[in-house]
């Protein structure tokens, strides 16, 4: 799993996650998510175009990000999820919540 965080103007943050986000790799992502939350962005765009696999642990991390950013008055949207990650997010009824 690789990730790229980019801060853009207007208090927006983009997070691109590639590869597999699972019970093992989510450990590497959590500090990044914590840092994003700490910056209190107005908007976080999570780009999953290159995410090939997600499990319940990975979903939990994204939901946690969503809840915490929202609690600070911001919003989180997930874009370009496809195949397995999209199927899992839809199964868990997160497609509408996350703007998919």
């Amino acid at each position: 799993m690789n990730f790229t965080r980019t801060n853009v103007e207007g208090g927006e943050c983009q997070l691109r996650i590639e590869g597999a986000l699972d019970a093992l790799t989510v450990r590497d992502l959590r500090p990044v998510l914590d840092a994003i939350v700490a910056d209190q962005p107005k908007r976080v765009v999570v780009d999953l175009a290159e995410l090939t696999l997600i499990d319940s642990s990975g979903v939990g991390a994204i939901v946690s990000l969503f809840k915490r950013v929202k609690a600070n008055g911001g919003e989180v949207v997930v874009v370009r999820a496809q195949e397995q990650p999209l199927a899992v997010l839809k199964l868990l009824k997160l497609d509408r919540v996350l703007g998919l």
Partner: protein
Amino acid sequence: MGSAVSTKPAAGSMRVTFQLRASLECRAVAIDLVSTIIGHVQGADRMFRHEMVTAFGEAFNNIVAHGYRGRTDGMVEIEADIRPGELILRIKDEGSVVDYGAISPPDLETLPESGMGVYIMHAMVDEVAYSGGPLNVLSLTKRTNPGAPGHVGPDQS
């Protein structure tokens, strides 16, 4: 859940067995091996692969995180029966018995951050069976055409 007891492979089927250390570090290898096995299931398409791999991944996570909690000596054996239009994965461990009946489905309206694994596992396959201890066997069955057991899906023709 029904019986997960293993029997001799049925005529026309092929059995593949492999063992891994029950560790998250072995998860990717386990998934790669299962994915390779899926490639030999007649009629299995991309959705079949995604769903079976997803269910297996959650089962593997549960064994590592709960069955062998606090242990580093655990092993997982995966027995795959490849049949025309059907794949059965029996995932065996010697960790703690899991009371699947006591696990409630998550309330998705509350946006849970955990407790979704078993729900996902059930949703992704056609049958889940479990036989607890001393050798725990979790059996996941998925068919290319769920309405007709053993039927070969159209995309293989």
